[in-house]
């Protein structure tokens, strides 16, 4: 997980994540949401998530909505099958405001009226 964009909190989640790393991701997302900046979660290099990680993502999305903070996830062809599968099974891709590239995600998160 890293961050690299002024005025936007971009959290890049790479590799596998599950119950063992979900708490760390949750702290990162909480800190990002508290900054007040729009938040982007880049899942383009994520290979696997379990339901505890999905829960963290959904909560972040809801929290962003409540705070009227811009929020997007980037989810594309490079995102692992293990991520897609869980989102498809649970019908959650839509609820995560997913767009296919990091640039789209940043543009969507900073655009006014898209909080």
């Amino acid at each position, binding site marked *: 997980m890293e961050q690299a964009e002024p005025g936007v909190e971009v959290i890049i989640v790479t590799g596998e994540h599950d119950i*063992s790393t979900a708490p760390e991701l949750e702290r990162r997302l909480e800190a990002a949401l508290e900054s007040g900046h729009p938040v982007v979660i880049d899942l383009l290099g994520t290979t696997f998530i379990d339901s505890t990680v999905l829960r963290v993502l*959904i909560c972040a999305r809801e929290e962003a909505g409540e705070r009227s903070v811009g929020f997007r996830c980037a989810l594309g062809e490079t995102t692992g*099958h293990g991520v897609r599968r869980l989102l498809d099974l649970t019908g959650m891709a839509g609820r995560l405001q997913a767009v296919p590239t990091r640039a789209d995600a940043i543009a969507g998160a900073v655009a006014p009226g898209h909080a």
Partner: protein
Amino acid sequence: MTGRVSDRAMTSRSSGFELELAAETDNVPLVRHALRGLLEASGVPEERISDIALAVTEACANAVLHAYPRSRGQFEVAADLTPGRELVVRVRDHGSGMAPRVDSPGLGVGLPVMAAIADALEIDTPDGSGTLVRMTFDVAGPAS
């Protein structure tokens, strides 16, 4: 996130493995990696491996999260790949037994995810204590 080698004993067999682990979150990825190794070595397609990894991760997460609310404990995972290309994974804990929780810290999709991915899911309480989750996966067929 430190490895806990002393907490586990691993026995490799030609077509499976058995792990005995402390019921701690850091051990969940270890199970997934052992499973992935077994299935990759057997030529199971990547997408099917990733589905199975999800179902087994959810079962292990439950053993870690729910089985021992007030104590520490162990859980065991056994995987057997039969020549007929059927994978049987058993996740066993010696905890509280299935205890429904209205206020679960989880998302509540673990059991249905397991049931959706596995070709059969069985849950019981052998010898009257803890939980055994047994999942059967057809690894020859499509990722369903």
